């Protein structure tokens, strides 16, 4: 039936990450996990994971040592706020970037 070859253009989006780009750049503060305080890391047993549960962007992994995907973490700080053991600290992003730059220069 499509002998007239209609293209039929519509706005039909396909699933993929990073629609808003690398949203990690939105961060003012970066969550840093102290694994000595983090319950699953400390116990080496799947537990707690409230940071994972509450994270609006799903950028925290549910591992024994939870990882934060900094490429996309927007730095809202909910994980730090809700962590029952205060294992997550929000650290000024510019300071960390500066420190990282220095480390890279040394290497």
């Amino acid at each position, binding site marked *: 039936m499509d002998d007239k070859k209609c293209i039929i253009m519509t*706005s*039909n*989006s*396909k*699933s*993929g*990450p*990073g*629609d*808003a*780009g*690398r*949203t990690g750049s*939105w961060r003012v503060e970066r969550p840093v996990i102290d694994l000595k305080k983090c319950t699953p890391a400390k116990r080496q047993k*799947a*537990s*707690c*994971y*409230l940071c*994972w*549960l*509450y*994270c*609006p*962007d*799903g*950028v925290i992994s*549910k591992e024994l040592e939870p990882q934060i*995907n900094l*490429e*996309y973490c*927007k*730095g*809202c*700080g*909910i994980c*730090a*706020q*809700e962590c029952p053991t205060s294992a997550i600290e*929000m650290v000024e992003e510019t300071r960390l970037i500066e420190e990282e730059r220095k480390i890279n220069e040394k290497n």
Partner: protein
Amino acid sequence: MNKQVTNPVNLTAEEFMHPGNRACSGCGLSTLYRIGLKALGRDSIFVVPPSCLTVMQGLYPIAATQIPCLNVTFASTAAAASGVRAALKVRKKENTKVVAWAGDGGTSDIGIQSLSAAIERGEDFLYICYDNEAYMNTGVQRSGTTPQGTITTNTPIKGKIQKNKDLPKIIAAHNPTYVATCSAAYPLDFYNKIIKAISLKGMKYIHIHTPCPSGWGIAERLSITVGKMAVNAGLYDLYEVENGKKTLSGPSSKLLQKKELPRVAEYLKIQSRFRALSEQQIAEIQAEIDTKWEGYRQEVG
């Protein structure tokens, strides 16, 4: 009951929403959506009107969601969902879940007509209203569910004069199969209520109190905390309505044992949107909450 209790440990790690989406930092809707999709699973079709969710789900050609979604006009969500359901019925794909997901403006104001009709027809889908108590996507204008006294961009000095509509109550008066209220601060309660809703035939409605850092005037990190405060102060109640019977559920039901609840002033004063409220108004809100909970306690004896 030997039912397994859902907790962060046993909740599926599979994500149906991509990171790097356009939700604001600390968005209450974003958490809800993420956990809600886990409850709904892949065999679902969404119907979404203009709202923050439209933007969060992605701009063409990238979708932040892995669930098929039909974006529709503002007033037509429940009607379009009825059409999707009808098509699935004739195509004999009745197991696919149809989920309408809209904001408070899209539900309590412009969308209430088509929603009311869909419930009256006894349609079979789940309608989720995330209520952040104003038109946030257009920059925080007052909606039908905005509480009295709230500063918004079109109630900028005195705050909203009128009281808010009790939308879940209006919906419950239609006698749908299931009505529940939830809070974005309690995503597992939301998860459980979705699981229950989708096990039932007919029209299901879930209303969610959804903190919005930019619209409410709170720090991004506080959106869960502030949501919990609303529930714990007894201001926003989590309940279910089935067969015309309302039952407090989840965190709210636990408040019944408490003699005194935290003062609502704490919740109100943390948010800059309530800065126009006088002490007198705050006292009136507290008095209303006290009367309401007195009633709840008497009901359960």
